């Protein structure tokens, strides 16, 4: 036992940290923790003044040369690290910025499209609230969601269908004038045959000369006012509007007075029975954004 005791004592002398009793070890910890807490309390209570603050300032000044030296030693390495890091950062930033440019470009395009559509809708609203808007019809506004795919296709698709009251032959107008009529209707979309469609025929009249005729497709994006007798007088610049119903037994598809277009030329020949009246449509049929379907408030309006 004596040997063990002396051995333990000797070894504890050689390794004080482990050799001291647990009490001493804990006492050291408690003293250090209390010291740290005391420093913390004093420092927290007077962070900008006092003896401790002054001592800290002196200490910081004393450490400053070492910090400067360390910075100088490390500067080449830090510069190298910064160079590599900035290269990596520049690459990732470039990718990020490109993504942002794409997003903003898409947003700008969407805004432009929205502004254009807004202008079209505003003009449409003006028309719907104007004096030429036909009575007994309510307007169902819709966006054009697909355009004619080529010169042989004179139809477009709008974002309104049977769920909003559209039927086959419902007239479609824009703020400028008549666009066409519905030829096929789905629940939420409808197909519209434009005035320039080969199958489109609209009873029309000249507002000035009161001459009646049929608007049919002409060359390119123009229309022809057909079936106008040679002896009738039609002048260049006359306004053409829809004829509307004249016989209650055979109601017209279109209400009276919807602007169709303006006469741009009048011609005739010796062998022809009718005048050749060329009409430019008011509605910009190739650049439509928003249209209105004229849904009759009385169901019997359409055949």
């Amino acid at each position, binding site marked *: 036992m004596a040997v063990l005791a002396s051995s333990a004592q000797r070894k504890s002398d050689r390794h*004080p940290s482990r050799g001291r*009793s647990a009490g001493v070890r804990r006492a050291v910890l408690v003293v250090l923790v209390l010291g740290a*807490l005391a420093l913390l309390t004093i*420092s927290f209570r007077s962070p900008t003044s006092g003896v401790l603050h002054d001592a800290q300032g002196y200490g910081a000044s004393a*450490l400053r040369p070492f910090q400067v030296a360390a910075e100088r030693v490390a500067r080449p390495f830090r510069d190298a690290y910064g160079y590599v890091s900035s290269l990596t950062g520049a690459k990732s930033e470039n990718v990020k910025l490109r993504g942002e440019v794409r997003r903003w470009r898409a947003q700008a395009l969407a805004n432009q499209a929205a502004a254009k559509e807004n202008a079209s809708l505003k003009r449409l609203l003006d028309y719907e609230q104007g004096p030429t808007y036909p009575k007994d019809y309510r307007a169902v506004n819709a966006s054009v969601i697909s355009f004619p795919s080529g010169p042989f296709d004179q139809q477009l698709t709008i974002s309104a269908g049977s769920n909003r009251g559209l039927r086959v032959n419902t007239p479609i107008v824009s703020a400028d004038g008549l666009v066409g009529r519905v030829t096929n209707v789905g629940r939420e979309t409808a197909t519209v045959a434009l005035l320039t469609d080969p199958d489109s025929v609209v009873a029309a009249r000249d507002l000035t000369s009161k001459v009646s005729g049929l608007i049919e497709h002409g060359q390119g994006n123009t229309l022809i006012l057909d079936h106008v007798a040679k002896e009738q007088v039609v002048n260049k610049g006359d306004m053409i509007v829809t004829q509307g119903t004249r016989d209650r037994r055979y109601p017209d598809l279109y209400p009276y007075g919807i602007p169709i277009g303006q006469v741009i030329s009048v011609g005739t020949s010796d062998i022809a029975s009718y005048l050749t009246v060329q009409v430019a449509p008011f509605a910009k049929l190739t650049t439509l954004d928003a249209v209105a379907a004229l849904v009759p408030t009385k169901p019997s309006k359409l055949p």
Partner: protein
Amino acid sequence: MTIADGLKAAALLFIAAIMQVSIFTQIHVFGGVPDVLLVTLVAIALLRGAIVGAGGGFFAGLLVDTATLGQLGLTSLVLTVAGYWIGRYGETTGRDRAHAPFLSVAVVTILYSVGLLLVHFVLGERAPAGAMLEGLGPAIVLNLILTAPVYALVRRLLRPLERSDLATEVQLLG
């Protein structure tokens, strides 16, 4: 622990503290900052025990708080507890374990971060737990990378005590 060992440990902690505040705090990798001072303290505490660990932690914390003109005692408090705890681990279950430095560094990095956060919170200062958690993973990895060279250096300067020195506190019966 001899005076020479104490001086070596103090010098190591001094250099590590200066390097930490001057160089390592500027290295940000994925939100994490390596802590060479903490790794050095862990190595010293593992090799020299709880009392040296606690004292070293207090001294190192004081240096950091002084150099950065921070709240005196704040870093000391956390590093003192960390040094003591790692020292006890080195004296007991961590003795002669090859993985002890790495395990200690990983655990202490977490506890040190949480401890600092808690102290800041208790003092009513800004304590962004989200930012701390975000940088914790990278900080652990960076500290683990530092562990091998730092521990090798400290071990070279502070030779591990012989096994016979570690057989302490013999309780005599009868």
